């Protein structure tokens, strides 16, 4: 049994694959915190729209989706995020999502269902802030009803 060192870059270099779970809620509904397993592989060449790279943001690793490919950078956004990150460079990217286990079921980024999800998710991004607002309003209504 070999323990992998802590950096994902090192693991990708030596093992050719990194397998782990996600933290946070930024990639919902695709991935839930600590429930699902992601398989990250090294990047070969430029990435494409809808790819999900793992990249460095300071000391953190972030796993979000490419929504636009620019000449020398990417616009990236989590599936559950309102804000977009601009100017993510290739040298910040340590790997890219290739496969996953979602609720215990195996999937790959080449599956038709996944690809449809990715396209729809990006296309309906305008609904994310709307969903937050609706959820907030519903929560307020619920609490008011509960009180009175």
């Amino acid at each position, binding site marked *: 049994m070999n323990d*992998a060192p802590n950096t994902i870059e090192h693991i990708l270099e030596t*093992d*050719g*694959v990194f*397998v782990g*779970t996600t933290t946070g809620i930024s990639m919902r509904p695709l991935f839930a915190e*600590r429930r699902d*397993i992601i*398989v990250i592989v090294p990047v070969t060449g430029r990435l494409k729209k809808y790819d999900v790279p793992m990249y460095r943001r300071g000391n953190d690793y972030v796993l979000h989706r490419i929504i636009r490919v620019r000449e020398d950078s990417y616009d990236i956004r989590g599936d559950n995020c309102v804000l977009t990150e601009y100017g993510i460079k290739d040298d910040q990217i340590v790997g890219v999502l290739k496969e996953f286990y979602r609720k215990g079921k195996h999937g790959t980024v080449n599956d038709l269902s996944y690809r449809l999800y990715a396209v729809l998710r990006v296309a309906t991004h305008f609904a994310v802030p709307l969903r937050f607002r609706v959820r907030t309003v519903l929560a307020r209504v619920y609490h008011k009803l509960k009180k009175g």
Partner: protein
Amino acid sequence: MKIKDGLIMRTVMGKSVVVATGEAAKTFSGMISLNGTATVIWKGVEDGLSDVEIAAKLTEEYDVTAEKALADVQKLLNDMRQRGFFEE
């Protein structure tokens, strides 16, 4: 011996890896790569086999004596125990 809830072994691109999910992910981060022997042993523990039974499986798969297999199994199980992989 029971492996802690949330520690999951998967075969990915031909490699066996162990990943922590759920509550276990709060304690364990990253992934653990298993070689062939460790994979057999991990599966044996998952299947509820004793160390002797796991050693027997190793002798079926590898050219190793029963004594050596048992010694390897016990060594790895001890390692796993020390790392907190088992429910206590």
